[in-house]
């Protein structure tokens, strides 16, 4: 089976004036469908850079990126937007819900950007998945941080992505809410979604199928629990 994401010889160099920062050095990695992978590493080690490249938010300086076997490095802006829209769901540390919109409207946003019809029942079922179907009409200012992140998760899965990329999604949450979010990601994974989680929380990382640790732009992969690798659909 084709890997969901495959990186080959990926390098990322940031240029700040005359200074060059090697944020990623020769990264080779593949993610299979249904995997739950955590990426750990110190601050500034290149985790976010890696996630940006895997999520087609940014282009590598060198190397190739394949999503579902499709080479994206050579695509134009519009095609890349489409890949992002159709294959990838993002969860951000800062949630980024649109303040004026209700929870349901926020969840529907990716569908709108995809010019897809909005089925109210479907949106409610997404909110139900994250346990917030009763809060559909609430605006972000009426929700707690944990609830906002759950709405953001519902938004991330709205477009039936193949893979969820989450960059420290529990970074601003307390222990209890962090647990809820992690359990939610696990349950999504158990439904077959590939999940790539950047986290500082070692306890969470240990519970994922594979931990990739990055230091100084270089990575090494460890398999922790084989039952998550093959994807139990």
């Amino acid at each position, binding site marked *: 089976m084709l890997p969901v994401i495959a990186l080959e010889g990926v390098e990322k160099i940031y240029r700040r004036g005359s200074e060059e920062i090697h944020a990623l050095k020769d990264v080779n990695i593949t993610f299979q469908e249904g995997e739950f992978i955590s990426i750990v590493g110190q601050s500034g080690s290149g985790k*976010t850079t890696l*996630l*940006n490249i895997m*999520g087609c*938010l*940014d282009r590598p300086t060198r190397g190739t990126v394949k999503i579902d076997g499709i080479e994206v490095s050579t695509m134009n*802006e*519009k095609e890349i*937007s489409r890949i*992002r*829209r159709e294959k990838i*769901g*993002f969860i*951000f*540390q*800062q949630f*980024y819900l*649109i*303040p*004026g*919109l209700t929870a349901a409207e926020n969840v529907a*946003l*990716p569908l*709108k*950007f*995809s010019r897809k019809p909005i089925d109210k029942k479907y949106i409610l079922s997404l909110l139900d998945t994250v346990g917030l179907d009763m809060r559909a009409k609430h605006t972000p200012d009426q929700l707690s941080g944990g609830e906002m992140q759950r709405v953001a998760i519902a*938004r*991330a899965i709205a*477009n039936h992505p193949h893979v969820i990329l989450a*960059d420290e999604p529990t970074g601003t949450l307390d222990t209890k809410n962090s647990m809820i979010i992690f359990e939610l990601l696990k349950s999504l994974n158990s439904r077959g979604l590939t999940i790539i989680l950047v986290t500082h929380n070692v306890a969470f990382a240990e519970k994922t199928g594979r931990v990739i640790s990055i230091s100084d732009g270089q990575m090494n992969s460890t398999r922790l629990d084989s039952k998550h690798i093959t994807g139990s659909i």
Partner: protein
Amino acid sequence: MVTPKLAYKNFLRQKRRNLFTAAGIAVSIALLFSTLSITKGFEKRMGTELQRTGIDFLIVPVSCAHEVASLLFYGKFTPTFLDQAIVEEIKRSPGIEIASPIIVAQMPDPKKNRKTLIYGYESEYIKKIKPDWRIKGEMPAGWDALRLNKILVGSDIAKEKGLKIGDSISYGSWTFLVSGILERTFSKDDAFIYAEIRTVQEVAIKTTGLRVIEVDDPTCVLKHRITDDPISAVAVKLKGAASFMEVKSDLTKRIPNIKTVTVSDAVKSVSAIAASAKTLSLSIVIVALMVGAAGIINSMLITVNEQTQEIGMMRAIGALKSDIFKMTIYESLIITGTGAIAGIILAIVGASLIEEIIGRLIPSVYSKGLLAFDIELAAVCFLMSLILGICAGLYPACKASKVSPVEAIKRL
């Protein structure tokens, strides 16, 4: 349609800032609307008003003939007079059907701190000179009118002073008897008083040191003498077949120091005043609109800057550059559209105030009721605001659409 709603929500988020920006647009659109309304109303009125006159041309003193004529048509006291004796001279010219003297004098109105114009006509010709007039009561005529100082008052004056037929009214030491009220003409005529020519001549003689151009010596620059029968102009109507050019050359040959001014000449000189007023006010409007546009650009750039990460998020979850671009333009359109609607309402509500100001600035051009709501002009102003919205939104929209999706993942 994703983006209009998002843009609207975004507009509400920065409510205060956006409303201030919209207020700037409102002021300039109000100015634009007023300028266009007044010009349009004026042009329309001038067309019909001049067609309504029953005369072909005026004979006026040679000095500043065009100004004198336009002022006569549009209402102003002229300081230079002719002697009524020339009317008989004029009538001798073949081709002339009517030659009737007109005089304008001004009556001080101490209560209002302004001057009211009083026009004197020969009552027997009033129907010819003002064919559209409908009079309640009667046009002052005959010896009785002179003895009792009978007057006809314009509808604005009648309304302002609560005058009825039979009332008397005083201006300084003068007391007049209202014998007729002119029904609303929707023109400058509504703001004046009319009387038999003799009555007004008496007023003019007593209120001014009358100078009449000396007609005996055409080579002399301007000589003056005193007359008992001053007139401001002679209204002339030609016989059907008569040629204006022939009559004109005959008159100017025989009677020195006069000038003929046709209705279309008067239109031209009044139009010239109106056009320059329009140009002036439109340039003010353009400056105001540019200032407004700068306000929008500024405000929108702040918004884009503040929302960089959010825009990045939308790009990350699938928004196209064009979605972000459109959204920013829509937001700009909401600002200018709101401003335009507020501005048009402002212009209509503030119309009376604006009328007052313009009336003082250019009294010869302006008359009341020009600033009426005109749906066509409102549409023009609204359209203008949308064009402005698009233009002002372009740069912020470009900036917004260039925001990289990476911004969403960057840490604060």
